[in-house]
């Protein structure tokens, strides 16, 4: 039997670029960066930059749920709502046991962790909040999405640092292909803009001073961001049978591990993941028009990623439009892949490649067409989205138009 085709029928997103997919995409097309001054408790000692969500949208959620939910899981719940609405999927008029969710996170409920330690160690409170455990746990976004939206099928979290969302897409598609669910929500969420996480990234000396400039010779690091993205996945047959609008196809996924260093990337690991993705999607390198790079803006990543892309795409690498939208929404950790999937899917739908913002100087080691600063109109038949991670856990996904 031929393998089931997995299509996307709903999309939801939130990050510094906007509180829904339409506004995020508008910002991306305009090359508008959401990076600005960070405002967070206990981080007032010096100015810092980040891509922070300006204001959370109003969201109707039971107060009893809200007290037990950290920001990262709330973002997942909100974006799941947007995706479900667009897909016309509701657990109240479908079999809820056939709808599931896989939500990735690279960190955990970081705000809760900070508040807890602050209360115990600084304010000398005698005990932790009873909500600490359910708010922090990395599976909370998946669990909360299922509770708020009534999904009773396979529900779990996945974690692979900054590749978490792409692993979530792969795992969710598998649930459908294995017959465990008809509809799966998939994506990622992270809200890392709190004292503990920001200071930990500072310790790595990986953060940019002024802004995120992927592939630009004067790049000096990544910028932390927060956000979430969720898509609704179902089989092509299931989507067409219920008359759903198909946004794009999740054509394939490829995963690999560097099995090298916990932080230093390799060329081989990302190369293998991209090749595995193309093979899984039955796509030739010439079929790909756009590649949304991992493109963190660190010296090491951008150079090694360029080399890996050249190794995979050969001569076609010079016909490929590449960009790092992290230049605008910054590095949203485990949510990155989900927000970058929005860039890929909308690029296919609108025939517009979103740019790499903040680009200033050519780097001979990053010599691909990185779509500097200005979006490019071109037909995008297929797009590939790279996600590499600390731990060397790589996941690459491919989307095609339907």
């Amino acid at each position, binding site marked *: 039997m031929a393998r089931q085709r997995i299509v996307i029928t709903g999309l939801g997103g939130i990050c510094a670029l906007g509180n829904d997919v339409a506004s995020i995409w508008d910002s991306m097309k305009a090359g508008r960066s959401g990076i600005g001054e960070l405002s967070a408790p206990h981080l007032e000692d010096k100015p810092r930059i980040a891509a922070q969500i300006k204001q959370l949208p109003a969201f109707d959620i039971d*107060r*009893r*749920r809200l*007290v*037990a939910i950290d920001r990262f899981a709330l973002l997942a719940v909100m974006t799941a709502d947007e995706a479900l609405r667009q897909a016309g999927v509701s657990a109240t008029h479908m079999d809820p046991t056939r709808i599931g969710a896989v939500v990735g996170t690279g960190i955990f409920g970081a705000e809760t962790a900070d508040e807890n330690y602050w209360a115990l160690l600084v304010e000398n409170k005698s005990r932790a909040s009873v909500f600490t455990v359910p708010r922090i746990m990395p599976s909370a976004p998946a669990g909360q999405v299922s509770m708020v939206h009534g999904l009773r099928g396979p529900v779990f979290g996945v974690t692979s640092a900054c590749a978490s969302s792409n692993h979530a897409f792969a795992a969710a598609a598998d649930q459908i292909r294995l017959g465990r669910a008809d509809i799966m929500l998939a994506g990622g969420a992270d809200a890392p803009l709190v004292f503990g996480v920001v200071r930990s990234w500072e310790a790595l000396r990986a953060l940019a001073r002024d802004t995120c400039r992927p592939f630009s010779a004067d790049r000096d690091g990544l910028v932390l961001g927060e956000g979430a993205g969720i898509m609704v996945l179902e089989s092509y047959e299931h989507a067409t049978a219920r008359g759903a609008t198909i946004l794009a196809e999740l054509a394939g996924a490829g995963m690999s591990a560097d099995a090298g260093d916990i932080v230093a990337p390799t060329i081989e690991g990302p190369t293998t993941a991209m090749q595995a993705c193309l093979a899984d999607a039955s796509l030739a390198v010439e079929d790909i028009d756009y590649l949304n790079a991992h493109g963190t803006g660190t010296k090491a990543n951008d150079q090694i990623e360029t080399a890996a892309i050249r190794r995979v795409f050969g001569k076609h690498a010079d016909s490929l439009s590449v960009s790092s939208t992290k230049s605008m929404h910054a590095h949203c950790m485990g949510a990155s892949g989900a927000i970058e999937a929005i860039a890929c899917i909308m690029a296919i739908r609108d025939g517009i490649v979103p740019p790499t913002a903040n680009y200033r100087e050519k780097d001979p080691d990053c010599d691909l067409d990185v779509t500097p600063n200005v979006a490019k109109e071109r037909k995008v038949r297929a797009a590939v989205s790279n996600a590499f991670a600390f731990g060397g856990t790589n996941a690459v996904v491919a989307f095609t138009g339907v």
Partner: protein
Amino acid sequence: MADQLADEIIAKVKAHADPEVGEITLDTDLNALGIHSLELTEIIFDLEEAHGIEIEMNTVDAWNSLKNVGDMVEAVRTLIAKKA
């Protein structure tokens, strides 16, 4: 008659309750407070600390049978009296 313990417990409950609940009295049903079950545990812990009382596990079970705020006040009053 002013009941300090009742006022104190009502204030604690109010801090956790859904603002839309309105005025909270001894007759207010615990289920009507819009409080997560874990929050009730928080309130109990606060009361333990404030009054130096200890609520044993079987007492916690008893809390499940409490119906309104007044029942909660009486349960705490009993434990305080036992301690004295």
